[in-house]
């Protein structure tokens, strides 16, 4: 685009992004990480060039966050985007200073390419599209003879206007009723916090086919099956030792709205629904009962009507002229309180990015995709998962030292006969064993 366009380009935040600048802190970074593990070592110079090319193609990502008098907004960032070696833990905070002003950070380490994205910019779908564009340019430079494709297959017919548009505003009038927020306090996983708010990641890699077969055998989908497994693991390993208060275990499941509404936007377009079960009244619930409950509960919630009502609820708050006219410092404070109440109604989150595909020519060079979701004081454990080819990577992110929920979760899967390979970012072996040398 021309210089003139760049200088005068600005964009309001989309409906879902509006809350994030106000509620982001060191305690809750609202940063997720999409990683790609390549087959070979990453070449930083090529990655840097690929990033610059991708930003030219998708200028919407080259923005910085600004504070206005009533709202935050986005405008063009003229700084140079920098690729750097990964030297922090996943989902570390992105503020206006530590990423050259950009709302994302692209890092590499051995075979990993990591995209840390601030949720103000986009959701997982947008981030995936961006990282796939970067990968396409990366491999086009590395293997010019082998890679001939120029475009990603997913979004063939979308203008740049559509990419940067707020789809919430396009679809908010589709529902008659306005959804109601669900707000009782949920059970909270507690433990010893990690040093310096680092994040412990444990990936469990299973075969997509085998997991799908297992879910099919229970007459359900992978997301619903694993939501039930997570809920049961939290009950088994945390709740049943801590049953002082009657609080449900509430798991939130973000839903990609592009699957239900016509949209090709690369900005946020998701809704969060949640399912919670009361374990306080009935002791010793078997896993099958949990699964049956989650299946029934999510069936009523993951459908177009329910999601449309959710969109309407979110957008109508934003349309209210009285709320819009509140100056930003007061808005920050109010949104913080609302967000905290919302967060307290959830125990954990399970994000399934689904099946990830890349152009066929790129397939031999990519090993796997991994999703990391940030954690905060209220939700100390979250799951991000995605599948690529036959590898389903289920990633636990944790803000606490304890890993018994992860243990129970994967134990259930291995008991069903699934082969699980575990990978972690945690190198510490214990207080009495010396730390290993850095092999990076």
């Amino acid at each position, binding site marked *: 685009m021309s210089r003139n366009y760049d*200088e*005068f380009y*600005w964009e*309001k935040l989309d409906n879902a992004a509006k809350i994030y600048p106000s509620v982001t802190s060191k305690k809750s970074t609202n940063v997720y990480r999409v*990683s790609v*593990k390549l087959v070979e070592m990453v070449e930083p110079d090529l990655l840097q060039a690929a990033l610059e090319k991708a930003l030219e193609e998708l200028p919407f990502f080259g923005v910085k966050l*600004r504070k*206005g*008098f*009533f*709202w935050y*907004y986005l*405008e063009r960032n*003229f700084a140079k985007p920098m690729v750097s*070696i*990964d*030297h*922090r*833990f*996943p989902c570390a905070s992105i503020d*206006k*200073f530590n990423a050259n002003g950009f709302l994302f950070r692209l890092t590499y*380490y*051995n*075979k*990993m390419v990591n995209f840390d994205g601030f949720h103000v910019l986009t959701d997982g779908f947008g981030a995936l599209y961006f990282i796939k564009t970067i990968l396409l340019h990366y491999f086009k430079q590395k293997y010019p003879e082998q890679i001939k494709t120029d475009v990603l297959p997913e979004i063939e017919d979308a203008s740049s206007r559509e990419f940067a548009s707020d789809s919430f505003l396009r679809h908010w009038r589709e529902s008659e009723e306005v959804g109601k927020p669900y707000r009782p306090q949920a059970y909270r996983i507690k433990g010893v916090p990690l040093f*310096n708010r*680092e994040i412990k*990641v*444990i990936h*469990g890699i299973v075969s997509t086919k085998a997991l799908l077969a297992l879910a099919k055998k229970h007459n359900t989908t992978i997301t619903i099956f694993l939501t039930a497994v997570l809920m049961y693991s939290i009950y088994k390993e945390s709740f049943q030792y801590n049953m002082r208060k009657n609080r449900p275990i509430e798991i939130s499941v973000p839903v990609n709205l592009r699957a239900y509404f016509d949209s090709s936007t690369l900005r946020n377009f998701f809704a969060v629904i949640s399912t919670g079960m009361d374990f306080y009244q009935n002791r010793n619930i078997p896993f099958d009962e949990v699964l049956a409950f989650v299946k029934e509960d999510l069936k009523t919630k993951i459908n177009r009507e329910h999601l449309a009502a959710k969109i309407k609820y979110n957008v109508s708050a934003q349309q209210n*002229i009285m709320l*819009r*006219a509140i100056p930003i410092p007061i808005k920050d404070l109010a949104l913080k309180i609302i967000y905290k109440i919302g967060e307290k109604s959830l125990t954990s989150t399970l994000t399934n990015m689904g099946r990830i595909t890349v152009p066929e020519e790129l397939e031999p060079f990519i090993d796997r995709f991994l999703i990391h979701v940030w954690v905060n004081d209220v939700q100390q454990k979250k799951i991000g998962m995605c599948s690529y080819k036959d590898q389903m990577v289920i990633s636990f992110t944790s803000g606490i030292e304890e*890993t018994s929920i*992860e*243990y129970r979760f*994967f*134990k259930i899967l*291995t008991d069903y006969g699934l*082969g*699980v*390979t*575990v*990978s*972690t*970012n*945690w*190198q510490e*072996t*214990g207080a009495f*064993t010396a730390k*290993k040398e*850095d*092999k*990076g």
Partner: protein
Amino acid sequence: MRLCNRCHVHIENDIDLCPLCGQNTAEIDDHYELDYPTNISKKKFKYLIRLIIFLAIVAIATILTIDFVVPEHSLWAVIAMVTTLYLTITIIFAVRSHRNLGLMILANVIGFSLFMIFIDSQTGTVWWSINYLVPAVIMLGTTIITIIIVFKPMLLRDYIIYQFIIALLGVAPLIIWLLKIATVDWLIIASAVYSLLTFIGMFIFKDRRTKHELKKRFHM
């Protein structure tokens, strides 16, 4: 690759204990993966700020102790304490503002003015601060930002809001003068006129950018 015989999972990383159950693991082959850095960098700024705050507390405690021990009371303790506070806040602000020059200029204009008014009020109150110093500091701040905007028009969007706030402050001493606190008027009036001219200049020379910037900042 390692194997945990309790969880029945394979482990890709070269770690002795199973990340799930903490049990010792058995080696299958010596092919390991290292996907994450092992040396995580630590934050330095936070420590620096804590050190500065602690040193300031030490300094103030020392001043108070000396003031308490020494029999005759004088002004120096209050002035020394406020000076320490002023310097501490200025340094912390400089570290935390992360090279945001516009914000630093604004903060220093306000901070230095208030500090000088305080010193003035403690030492005889002839209002040299309001008569001369405050308008001069405000004019200096406006001038620095004007120079930046003239030579680097690209940075206008970063500085304009601070320019407007400082220019508004330029009018403030006028009110003090109208309330008959100040005794000398020529510099105060000059500062107010200078601020007004800066406003007009912004809209005449940088009209498109200025209007665009205001539209963005105040969108509802």
